[in-house]
């Protein structure tokens, strides 16, 4: 399966937002893509549409030869069958579960959980519950939880916004090596150029609901 020739993901999506309409026709060339744009430009919504969380999305989404959405044919693969790793900006850790239980939620082996915790510097915190964590710790858990679900595509929404500078590059390197090991493409959205530099080979900007290459 190709890693750099493009063509693994293609999306034509139309989706009304509060004030504008998201209307993208998108075919990234590489496996690490950043979408940049100001707050409120619809980046997060685009990511949610890819994950299968926007029921009002129209158009087509194809990934690796599979069709996830084809509104003309009334086809929409539900979120639980798309196998995407969605890391929302607010982390959204399950508040009633410990970190260990959050990481193992998708059914990962205990050894895999331990290893992931180590790579994300979370080993000491495994028995805690999310409300006792800092924002940065939460983002790392959310990332680990998504990676442990063995996704085919990783969707990162402002993944480093709560991390200190030194930690950002450590975590970014970890994500890069993990996704290369597992041949997992990344789509990252951010308002911050620096995030894109850390992880993405290709950049797009989302302005007024349209996606343009940079």
């Amino acid at each position, binding site marked *: 399966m190709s890693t750099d020739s493009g063509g693994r993901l293609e999306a034509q999506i139309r989706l009304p937002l509060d004030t504008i309409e998201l209307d993208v026709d998108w075919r990234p060339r590489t496996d690490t893509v950043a979408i940049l744009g*100001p707050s409120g430009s619809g980046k997060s919504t685009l990511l949610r549409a890819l994950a299968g969380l926007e029921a009002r999305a129209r158009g087509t989404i194809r990934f690796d030869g599979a069709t996830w959405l084809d509104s003309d044919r009334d086809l929409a693969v539900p979120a639980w069958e798309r196998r*995407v790793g*969605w890391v929302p900006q607010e982390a959204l850790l399950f508040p009633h579960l410990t970190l260990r239980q959050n990481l193992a939620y998708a059914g990962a082996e205990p050894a895999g959980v331990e290893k992931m915790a180590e790579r994300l510097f979370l080993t000491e915190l495994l028995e805690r519950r999310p409300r006792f964590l800092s924002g940065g710790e939460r983002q790392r858990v959310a990332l680990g939880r998504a990676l442990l679900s063995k996704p085919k595509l990783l969707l990162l929404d402002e993944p480093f916004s709560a991390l200190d500078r030194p930690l950002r590059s450590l975590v970014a390197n970890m994500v890069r090596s993990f996704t290369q090991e597992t041949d997992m493409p990344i789509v990252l959205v951010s308002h911050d150029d620096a995030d894109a530099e850390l992880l993405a080979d290709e950049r797009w900007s989302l302005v007024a609901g349209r996606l343009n290459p940079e």
Partner: protein
Amino acid sequence: MSEGKHNLGNLKHQKLSCRLSVVQTKQWLRWAFAVQIIVPQGLAATVALGVLAPSQDPTSAPDGEALVVLAASSLQDVLPVAAHAWAGAGGTRVRFNFDATSRLAPQVFRGAPADVFISADGEWMRWLEERASVDPSTVLPLVTNQLVFVVPRDAASAPTTAAELERSGLARLALAGEDVPAGRYAKMALEMAGVWDGLASSVVRGGSVRGALEWVAAGEVDGGIVYRTDARAEGRVRVAFSLAGDGFPEVLYPGAVAAQTRNRERALEFLAFLRGPEATAIFSEAGFGRAGAGATPSLQQPLQVPSSIIDPWSAVRLSLVVALGAVILGLIPAVAVGWMLARRDFFGKSVVSMLFMAPLVVPPVITGFLILSVLGRRSAIGGFLDGIGFPIPFTILGAVIAAMVVGFPLYAMAIRGAFDTVDRRFEEVSWTLGVPRGLTFRRISLPLALPGIAAGAVLAFARALGEFGATVVLAGNMEGETRTIALAVYSLLESPSGRGAMWTLVIASITLSLVALLGFESLSRWQRRRLEDHHVH
């Protein structure tokens, strides 16, 4: 760009504080709402009566020249006709208040403004004489009535004598309440026929004789004992035999002038008119008999203070069992409806929502009547349930269903609120992790809403404890089976000797309600605290 972000942050902050004040307002509303809903209405009225009654001025003049007459409810068709005749013969206008004698007599005793009291039996009249609430020298027997045994008009067979009742295989037999004269006369009659002991367990007590008659007419019971005059007016029943003569008690209506009257002369004239030839014709037209002059047998009997033995703790225990049953029976439907209202959008959602919320505003008596029409023995569903051994009317199951239905809106609404506090993006994250809807519900939504669901259960429990109206219609008022706290209090209201038991029940009920409200409040707070961390970053 960073300025834009800043502004957005401010906006979020404003939204948040706005939401907080809404939450606080809701909190107040909820308390007021909950107290109003949970304390049994009958109980609240009792307490209000206890507080307010002594302040009534018993000497206040009746309005204008009208004579105020409190009379047994079995007279409500005939007395106005007699009063009209009296007005034609130079009498004054008469205002009536018809109710069960057992409810009216305590009102007269407490000083309700009245000029004339007409009882359906001698004992309640005697009770008032002893308390100087009526003038003993004015007590006069006015008319007589007879008890009859009625069956639904289309009943296949019917007993022809009281002695046959025991062998006739009647499952349910309706009588008026045990302190209502018609109910006591009926019991006396059955005792005299020697069949009471065998029938006692089949007896269902309606509040008034009209209530018992309605049950027979609707076919919910196999038969009942009512006054001949009532049976005459009801086309859906037929008289199987009468309980008169041969040593059966004579049903006698004595009248008297109330002690606090300010129209004594007029009141005496009215009583005299009722014994005169013109009124006697009206009474006999309606099926009443003429009372002999002088004292009557039932007045000569030694005074039995009307009382029923109501064990308050049995009522409390039963209330707890019924309320618990209602909570358990309603759990799955309430979670399903709460979830649907919180999470699903579909065409006609507001109509469905309104339907489920209706028991909150529809009078419980009407709710009870509707349940009876759906689950009564004559209905398809009720008949089926009856056939497989789960009869609903007049059983503890009926009491549980009544309490469940009436408490359901609170139950489902509280659970809907609990699901509303759960950010649905938690569910979305779970989906993207490969966990489908049903399993996500079990692993995420349900555990996160659990304290709120428990709060809803406690609220429904509290409401079930206070249920009265639907229960009395659907399940009757049967000691040990359906007589819950509210029903026991209502029965005790008609029994002047039961004041001690009454206050036990009042205190038990208020204590239980407040404990349940506290439980509801702390569970709700837990639900909010548990999740609030995730709304603020």
